[in-house]
């Protein structure tokens, strides 16, 4: 399956880094990635990114929503993608997994050009996707959610027990239907389901949305544990405090363009960025 992804005619000069970085060589992505140019922040040039988004343009009909977004996520890294309502955060995530097609630019994952691969292939390459609305099926039981994920990822049933250890509240509700779960439980199920396939990159779209503060903390702690296992995370959030607590790097988006890339500390040092693009001083 991954073979056929590779077979796809490679876009000319695809800005995708090799699986094993050549020693001392800068990531190929650096050539194009505006992310690198953006602030010239502390980079580890010898680590090839796991995910490379280079200069993508995405449209809804005629409306030009993403106007050249570039970012990357390195192995084990947590990158927070921040921005106000309508900035294009969800569209960026949907573009990465091909739920919304990219019109120009490239998306690379672990050395593969996945720009135009079908969504299920991208997911099977090792990306877990937790969507904005959590994507819980109202008429399926919790167990069935996990069964489908196991089936799609071709994992043995034991994998479910492993993941459920991290989500005790879900394991008590296996026979409940999606619509019977609380918001927090739905969010946990959505994350658990994405983790079943042992993704190398977990993509989350506002996991804290609509949750009580105490549940937000629970989600944050869960993600911190996921990060500790070496899984890379790309996190979209409106809850800046939660995002900064987890992130190694921050990308700020506004009107479909990257306005800032840097570490949380560097963001703190630029109150004007926070003020203009995030609405916090």
């Amino acid at each position: 399956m991954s073979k056929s992804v590779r077979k796809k005619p490679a876009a000319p000069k695809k800005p995708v880094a090799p699986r094993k970085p050549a020693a001392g060589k800068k990531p190929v992505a650096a050539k194009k990635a505006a992310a690198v140019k953006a602030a010239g922040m502390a980079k580890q040039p010898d680590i090839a990114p796991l995910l490379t988004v280079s200069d993508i343009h995405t449209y809804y009909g005629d409306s030009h929503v993403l106007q050249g977004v570039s970012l990357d996520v390195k192995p084990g890294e947590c990158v927070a993608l921040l921005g106000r309502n309508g900035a294009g955060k969800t569209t960026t995530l949907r573009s990465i997994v091909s739920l919304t097609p990219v019109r120009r630019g490239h998306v690379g994952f672990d050395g593969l050009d996945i720009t135009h691969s079908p969504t299920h292939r991208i997911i099977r390459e090792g990306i877990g996707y937790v969507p904005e609305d959590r994507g819980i099926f109202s008429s399926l039981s919790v167990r069935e959610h996990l069964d489908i994920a196991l089936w799609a990822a071709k994992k043995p049933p034991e994998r479910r027990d492993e993941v459920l250890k991290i989500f005790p509240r879900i394991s008590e509700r296996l026979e409940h239907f999606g619509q019977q779960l609380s918001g927090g439980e739905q969010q946990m199920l959505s994350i658990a389901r994405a983790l079943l396939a042992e993704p190398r990159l977990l993509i989350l779209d506002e996991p804290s949305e609509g949750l009580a503060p105490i549940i937000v903390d629970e989600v944050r702690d869960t993600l911190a544990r996921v990060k500790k296992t070496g899984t890379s995370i790309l996190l979209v959030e409106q809850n800046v405090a939660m995002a900064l607590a987890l992130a190694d790097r921050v990308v700020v988006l506004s009107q479909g363009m990257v306005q800032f890339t840097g570490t949380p500390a560097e963001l703190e040092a630029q109150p004007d960025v926070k003020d203009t693009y995030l609405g916090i001083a």
Partner: protein
Amino acid sequence: MTFFLFNLLNGLQLSMLIFLMAIGLTVIFGLMDILNLAHGAFYMAGAYFGYVVFQATGSFWIALAIAPLLPLVLGFLLQYFVLQPLIDRGRSAHLDMALLTFGLLFFTIGLIDLVFFETLGLTFMSIDKPAGLGSYVNIGTFYPSYRLFIIAVGLLVALIVWLLLERTVVGAVVRAGVDDREMVRAMGVNVYVVFASVFALGCGLAGLAGVIAGAELSINITMGVQILIPTLVVVVLGGLGSVKGCFFGSLIVGMTETLSQAYVPALALFATYLILAAMLVFRPQGFFGRTPKSV
């Protein structure tokens, strides 16, 4: 009393025939948003190919086993290579799909007419009932055993489809897809294969209904449109993608058509439509209709 029992069984028999058609149509509509009006063509493909196989082998049972494979394969090809690529290119409006499959239905009717009537000159065609199912059994009234067979097939298929949908992972994928198709893709499921397989199974069941009907009713070029209309009513009554709804919808339509014809013939022509209209006004999502989309 025996007259009533006789009509009740007739109604049940018609209901089961309609169910075999409607179950595919409703699951396909619920899962893929395709109103497959070509379903009538797959019914005809089953009946006519069943006739050909029956003529070649002389066996009803071989025809019953082999003929549904033609609509099954054709259905897979149609969905995988024609409809899905159109959907991917944004041609997914209900009207687009309905018009395309409607055209396909009439193309099939024309093609069958050309081959079987214009070329081969066949007019009155039917498949012989198998030995043992050709006579009557006494169950309080003398009733054709073949019609009891139709009832049994319908009940058996309903049970199998229900088990497949409710008790297997692939069934869970289909139900999930009715809720939120996009999320199923985002879980790494190859929906193209799932969709085409479900489409194919639905068409295969339509073909099965065609073979079965070919031994009870006559095989002719209007049969596809004739069965399609009550089938569409069932889809509306039952709600999308629900086996239970489809089953009870089929019972209502089959019984209404049969009993109104037996007792109030003046009503027979539009009794079903009265129910349809009432349903659309008071409960447009159907008896067991769910609001699609994830929570």
